[in-house]
């Protein structure tokens, strides 16, 4: 086994689960996430000579997987302009994720969600996250802060509706 093959095998074995979790958190669909991450790892192998020197190869895989998903949905949108247009993304029932939390995460603006995925699920530091997203560390902090505030508000709202479903409809 060559050094490249060995290095990639180690990377694949150590990174599959964290990358898949990060993409599941963002898409909410295990099957779709699995396919997107497999595709991203395949592309990683195709570009391994460059990628092995990447400062955060897991982040590269996750972003590639999420981009692959976005392309897939854009393609579906072009091919099926009248079908599935209001289809809800799959809920967390199959993922084991908390439904309200997952929905709240998916409702975040894409950039805030990306920051959460890289910073929280891949545990990248602020500087590395900023480099990956090609934004400044201050912007990363701002996105993170806004995301946390939104999640907190959404969760509070979900809790209110759970305990008193009429609260929001009477007003």
């Amino acid at each position, binding site marked *: 086994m060559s050094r490249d093959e060995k290095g990639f095998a180690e990377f694949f074995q150590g990174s599959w689960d964290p990358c898949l979790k990060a993409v599941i958190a963002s898409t909410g669909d295990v099957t779709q996430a699995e396919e997107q991450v497999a595709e991203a790892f395949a592309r990683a192998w195709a570009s391994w000579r460059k990628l092995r020197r990447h400062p955060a190869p897991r982040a590269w895989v996750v972003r590639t997987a999420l981009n692959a998903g976005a392309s897939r949905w854009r393609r579906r949108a072009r091919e099926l302009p009248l079908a599935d247009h209001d289809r809800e993304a799959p809920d967390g029932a199959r993922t084991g994720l908390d439904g309200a939390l997952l929905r709240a995460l998916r409702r975040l603006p894409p950039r805030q969600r990306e920051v959460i995925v890289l910073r929280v699920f891949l545990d990248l530091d602020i500087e590395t996250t900023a480099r990956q997203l090609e934004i400044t560390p201050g912007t990363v*902090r701002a996105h993170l802060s806004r995301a946390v505030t939104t999640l907190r508000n959404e969760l509070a709202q979900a809790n209110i509706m759970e305990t008193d479903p009429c609260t929001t409809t009477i007003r």
Partner: protein
Amino acid sequence: MYDNDQMTDSPELRELRDALSGIGMPGRPPLQTIKSRGQAHRRQQRARATRFSVGGVVVAGAMAVGVSLAVTPAQKLGAIQRAAYTLHHNLNGTDTLTLNPVELLDPSQLQSDLARYGISAKVATGSYCTTTPEPTGFSQAVTLPGPGSSGRVGSGDQPTITINPSQIPSGTELSVGYFQLTSGPAAGEQQANMSLIKTNSSSCTTTPPDMSQPDTSNQDFGLIYGGARDRGHSARLSSRSH
């Protein structure tokens, strides 16, 4: 605003992290499957680079003769659809080749399409290459879901071959010999034979292997299937293995 540690340690993000740690994770796919897909990407990248370098000439030529360069939607979705066959990539890493018995096959196109899917193969017209002794592993790499050792495919049926690129041993490739039969009881039909060969060591014959003799070695198979469009739909499968 929170500082960084406070933000990532907020109850909401802790909850997200905890929820994620409890997910039932599907198993990792085989590394070889990922690498095969990656190799297909590499080939596509190389082919794209080549196309770009000669793109102007090709486009001009195509326009001159009115050839369409558009890819079909099936190609975009991971399946390659040709008149004579369809090549489909499955999620489990295998590839399915379905032959259309009423169309003649273009071997160089099939070889190129197999390469796009990471399957190294030598496909030739009027010639079939083998290695003696035959490398082992053929029955793991190639399966025919059709009838057993021999049989007939019903009218209109399309022979389907499943190829598992991850099971093709290193240093070997698939050999596909394709013949348009002009004599004998199967005159007018098509014959395809497949086996594993060593990449750098094989000998080739221009005589189609005799399909009347059953082969139980499980190291290759042969397929006689429908001939030209006007011969009807007499797809006949004579598998020498399986």
